[in-house]
């Protein structure tokens, strides 16, 4: 059960790739809407089908509200509001620049800059930064009681928390001031008694990159002059919100070796860095089918009596299918126990592997139902440390 997390203003769903972060984020928002709240889910990489289910017109960067009638028709009536949007890193970055540019001319210069265009759209890492920036915008927006944040599929699931710092360090860091100084002001180097090391760095860098590239970078960075403080401040605000009791982090895990190990590591890092960890959501757990019938021949005879072709072979195949299904479920159980032991408590929620992939509202409602089902929370998990 993840009740405590549902009271928080920001719910972050993190975890390894493919475990179900996007699905769980959408289900959390759906559940909040069901409870009468105004919830917005920021999805990172929704498949078109899921976006359709959430009523997102053309995977927009702007929040769109899911149609209440459609939710009701799908068996998930909401007395609140369900909003969804897809993160568009480039559009978000453009707005950030517009917000902090001192004037129109600087803004246009940055937006038109070749390096900026590649940096804002294509470079890995900008998406992580912009997820945090977008969160800031939505918190200011005022239309939402809750924001559920799906996280980018980073190598390290927490990369996105460090991304603003990394990016601001690049556009405004002291190191770069040194590197770009010659282009801004050729007297700069002469005026200061620079360590020999630094001038060697400059000389070498020019040689490696070619002078032109270095000048372009310098021009690009100098256009950010004066905006850096604003960037850093915003990133700092989000970070303090995310470490406060207004936020909750759910770690989504799947009962597979890799994702389970990643989840344990993630829990450790969240706790170490002071982020409010609200529990593990173990997704896609297979149900354990009953044991095999004692007598295969008996099954074969029955099938034969029904006129089934190749009855003995069919009976054997049925048992193989059963054995495989049991093997999968038993592996899930083992990993579930291993995860509980390593994470210091049972999962806050266990969601079954659904036969029909949850790509529509009805499927998401089923996931939401499992998320808040009290049955698994008999023992108090890590959620107890929340609130």
């Amino acid at each position, binding site marked *: 059960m993840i009740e405590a997390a549902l009271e928080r203003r920001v719910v972050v769903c993190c975890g390894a790739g493919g475990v179900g972060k996007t699905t769980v984020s959408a289900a959390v928002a759906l559940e909040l809407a069901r409870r009468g709240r105004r919830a917005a889910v920021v999805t990172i990489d929704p498949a078109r089908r899921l976006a359709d289910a959430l009523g997102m017109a053309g995977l927009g960067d702007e929040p769109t509200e899911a149609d209440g009638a459609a939710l009701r028709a799908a068996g998930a009536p909401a007395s609140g509001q369900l909003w969804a949007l897809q993160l568009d890193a480039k559009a978000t970055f453009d707005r950030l620049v517009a917000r902090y540019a001192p004037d129109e001319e600087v803004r246009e210069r940055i937006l038109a800059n070749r390096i900026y265009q*590649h940096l804002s759209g294509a470079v890995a890492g900008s998406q992580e930064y912009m997820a945090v920036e977008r969160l800031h915008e939505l918190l200011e927006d005022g239309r939402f009681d809750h924001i559920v944040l799906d996280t980018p599929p980073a190598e*390290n699931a927490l990369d996105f928390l460090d991304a603003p710092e*990394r990016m601001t360090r690049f556009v405004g860091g002291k190191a770069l001031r040194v590197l770009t100084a010659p282009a801004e002001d050729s007297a700069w180097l002469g005026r200061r008694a620079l360590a020999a090391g630094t001038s060697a760095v400059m000389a070498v860098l020019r040689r490696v990159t070619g002078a032109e590239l270095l000048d372009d970078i310098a021009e690009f960075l100098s256009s950010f002059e004066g905006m850096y403080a604003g960037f850093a401040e915003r990133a700092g605000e989000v970070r303090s919100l995310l470490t406060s009791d207004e936020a909750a982090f759910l770690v989504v895990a799947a009962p597979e070796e*890799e994702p389970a190990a990643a989840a344990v590591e993630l829990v450790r890092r969240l706790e170490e860095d002071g982020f409010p960890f609200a529990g593990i959501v173990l997704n896609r757990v297979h149900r354990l089918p009953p044991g095999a019938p004692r007598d295969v021949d008996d099954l074969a005879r029955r*099938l034969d009596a029904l006129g089934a*072709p190749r009855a003995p072979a069919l009976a054997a195949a*049925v048992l193989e299918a059963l054995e495989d299904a049991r093997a999968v479920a038993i592996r899930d159980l083992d990993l579930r126990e291993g995860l509980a032991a390593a994470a210091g408590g049972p999962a806050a929620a266990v969601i079954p592997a659904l036969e029909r*992939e949850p790509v529509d509202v009805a499927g998401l409602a089923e996931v939401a139902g499992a998320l808040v089902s009290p049955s698994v929370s008999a023992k108090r998990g890590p959620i107890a440390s929340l609130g």
Partner: protein
Amino acid sequence: MAASNAPRQRGAAPVSSGPTLTSQHAIDPPLAERRLCFVLGKGGVGKSTVSAALGIAYARQGHRTLLLEVAGRDRLSRLLDRADASTEPTVVGEGLYAATIDPEEATEEYLRGQLPVRAIADVLAGSKTFRTFTQAAPGLKEMVTLGKIWSYAVELRPDQEAPEWDRLVVDAPATGHAVALLETAANVREIAQGGPIHEQAERIREVISHPAATGIAVVARPDELPVSEALDAIDRLRAAELPVAAAILNCITPRRFSDEDVAALESARALVNGSERGAIDAALAESRRAAREARHARDLEGGGVPVIRLPLLARGAGRLAGLEELASAVTDGLSQRAGVA
């Protein structure tokens, strides 16, 4: 001889045996004939597992094969029982080697290759300013990683007669990041107009976008969302002029029951109970799943690239026996001819 990113290599290995012009899709060689393979796909679909299986399959065919992964995700090394995840190629099987790419180390190595005077490189490597720059500069990590992969691909044997590696398999990051990684060469070429970086980026871009040299394999699971995402990825790669060679459908449920079988099981179900009914239910659930998967597989085939199918291993793929089994399935899949779009 350690590979280096230095552009002044003594001569590059021929990256292709085919025509040097960008060939049309219809005459592109199948994945198996391309020396450099990038395995990418959504998180958790089985990229590392498939990379290992592909490497084993190539090595079995007698190719001297190098598996590459990027530092930080030493999944591949763990799968192969490679204790140290070393950045030097180490042997992991007959004809099969693996190496981890550490972008920081590769950056330093790159600089050393660029700079004739060792002392200068030392100053740079030891400089805090420089370290801050390399860690923060967006795109640099990707560029250096790609450069390192490229340098392995063009590395020659000591006798200069043949490439050091017959096949290279890269366990790439999740789709979004992997596409960004592959696009870095073209991006950097644009950003640095002229100068040594521009030229290096162009050399790298030439190799990774050449369909006779490089093949991208997009891995998917046979579910609706993963398949639609794989199709999007294929479109995106094509739009970026990156050579998609195959889709790999991983974790396919075995097809044990014919329609006739299913009909018989459905009528039998009503007549039994207890564990027999449980067994029949499991069989019917499996056959429903297999039927759904077959639909998603057809959708994936609509992507216009050959689809290689790999079975779901009920007992997991994190074991050597599992990898060997998948490698055999890869070998079967590779022998299909491409170009049936």
